[in-house]
């Protein structure tokens, strides 16, 4: 076994994992604050992938650029969705929220199937075959750019929640909803902003994801499960947890694909998930409830 090969696999897993982490961050933010499980999360990621594909084919826009308009559009979608529909479900039982979003997920994924058909749509970037050679290591250029972009978006999100007054207000809602209402925060609007931010994250992640996968409706469900797995492993509501969970799953997937078979990679993720649920239900970075 050559150490350099293994190192290559690990680096590739880390880079992919950062994109996964950004996607999971969106889910974690929505659940941590609004307490609604977005079971259509992966479906939104795939919508973003198709949008990126269309912008690339139609206007020649690079995914790293189309990320910005897509994230803004997804923020708007999330805001409107929360205000009009999801807000009615806040505080209702979990299975009702779940079924609402499962319904939405079915509509999105089959809508995509009706519009684009089942065939995968590749985004052939001019630099998608390039790689950086560092000694014995060969690292995909596109993956490095995408991972850096994912880190930048995550950093922006951390800064938003840490330093802006809206971010602080949203954290207040998450910590103590009644208290937030008492001091006069507009919870309904803040929830909508949060859902919007969550979708903006998944939109940005989807735009970056075209560097590692071709857009196809069949990805949606596995992305949803992936996001849930990462968030639970990292700790629900913990933002660093989502990123760390993402990297962990990215590396585990890369290793499983390399040592076993690519089709078996998610078996390892699910095994990790069950282990975390049983041994450390609050997740790696979560606080005990």
């Amino acid at each position, binding site marked *: 076994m050559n150490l350099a090969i293994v190192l290559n696999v690990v680096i590739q897993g880390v880079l992919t994992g950062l994109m996964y982490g950004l996607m999971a961050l969106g889910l974690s933010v929505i659940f941590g604050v609004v307490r609604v499980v977005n079971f259509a999360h992966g479906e939104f990621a795939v919508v973003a992938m198709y949008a990126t594909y269309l912008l690339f084919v139609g206007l020649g826009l690079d995914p790293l650029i189309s990320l910005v308009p897509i994230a803004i559009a997804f923020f708007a979608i999330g805001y409107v969705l929360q205000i009009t529909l999801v807000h009615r479900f806040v505080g209702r039982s979990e299975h009702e929220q*779940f079924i609402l979003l499962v319904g939405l997920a079915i509509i999105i994924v089959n809508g995509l199937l009706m519009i684009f058909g089942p065939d995968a749509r590749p985004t052939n970037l001019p630099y998608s075959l390039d790689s950086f050679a560092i000694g014995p290591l060969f690292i995909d250029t596109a993956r490095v750019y995408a991972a850096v972009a994912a880190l930048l978006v995550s950093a922006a999100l951390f800064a938003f929640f840490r330093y802006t007054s809206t971010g602080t207000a949203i954290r207040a809602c998450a910590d103590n909803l009644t208290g937030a209402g008492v001091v006069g925060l507009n919870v309904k609007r803040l929830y909508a902003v949060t859902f919007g931010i969550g979708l903006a994250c998944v939109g940005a992640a989807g735009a970056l994801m075209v560097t590692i996968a071709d857009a196809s409706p069949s990805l949606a469900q596995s992305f949803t499960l992936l996001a849930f*797995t990462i968030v639970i492993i990292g700790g629900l509501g913990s933002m660093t947890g989502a990123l760390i969970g993402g990297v962990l799953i990215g590396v585990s997937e890369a290793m499983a694909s390399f040592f076993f078979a690519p089709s078996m990679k998610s078996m390892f993720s699910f095994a990790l998930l069950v282990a975390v649920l049983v041994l450390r239900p609050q997740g790696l970075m979560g606080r005990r409830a």
Partner: protein
Amino acid sequence: MSDMWAAIPPRGRIVLAMLLALLLVAPAVLDRYLMSVLILIFYFAFVGQAWNIMMGYAGQLSLGHALYAGLGGYVAALLWFYFGIGPWIGVFAGVAVAAAFGAVIGWLGFRFGIQGVYFALLTIAFAEFTRIAFDNMAFTGGPSGLFLLYDEHRAGEWWNLRGGPMLFYYLGLILAAGGALLTAWLSRSRLGYQWLAVREDQEAALSLGVGAFRAKMIAVLISASMTAIGGVFLAFYNNSLFPSQAFEIGRSIEIILAPVIGGLGTIFGPIIGAFILTPLGETLIALTAKFGLDLPGTKAVFYGLTLMIIITLRPDGVWPWLKRLLGLELKP
């Protein structure tokens, strides 16, 4: 049994008896296509009832019920395929395997306090795990599937579930009716009341000495076993099994549609739900095909919309509302 009958108001008894009689004689006049629709309705009413026991009564959200149906179907089909053991015996093996998986999931979930969404994810994880495992195993046919050859010489062997629509029609009817009877009986038993107590407030139930762990475990075992029987039925009706279909989340969601739309935690909910949804879906396909709009995914979009509308406007399902409308409520 007699007190169950007494719990139905006189008007309801007449409607129910008429409906049953109608379904019993219906095959005499129905064509092949309508028979196949009714067979699907019975199947969904039955597995919906199984899920209803777990979610509607015991309050445990499982989104991996395809696992039990798939295991039941695969075990019985493999026994038939390799050893010629008929499904009436195979179903016991299928139920045993599915119940064993249910026991593991239930034990992990309830022993370690994995609840709500977390529990749902645990069930999905097991179903997906099994799907990938079956995809990678050779003796199950792997991703290219397992086919039960339809042999003309055995066409009349009802004891091997080798028969036409008539056989599956009556078998389906028995399953759907039997499932409803079982649920009705359970819901009025000591166990049924324990389920409701655990569903409504587990802490309170525990403080009153209700064995929540035991009650929930029994719910999983019954539900998994029933679903496995449904899986055997479907496998021998379709004569084919694919891991990508049998264990898919889509299949699990199909199972929960009828009870959610009909009414969770009610005996007639899954039946009404199946009777509403399946014909609507079939009509939609026929209509879209007529206008040349039958793109793949149309039916699923319709199901998704139905789920969203029902859960937004009538979270208790159609049946409680329909019951009031028809005046079928028992006067207190």
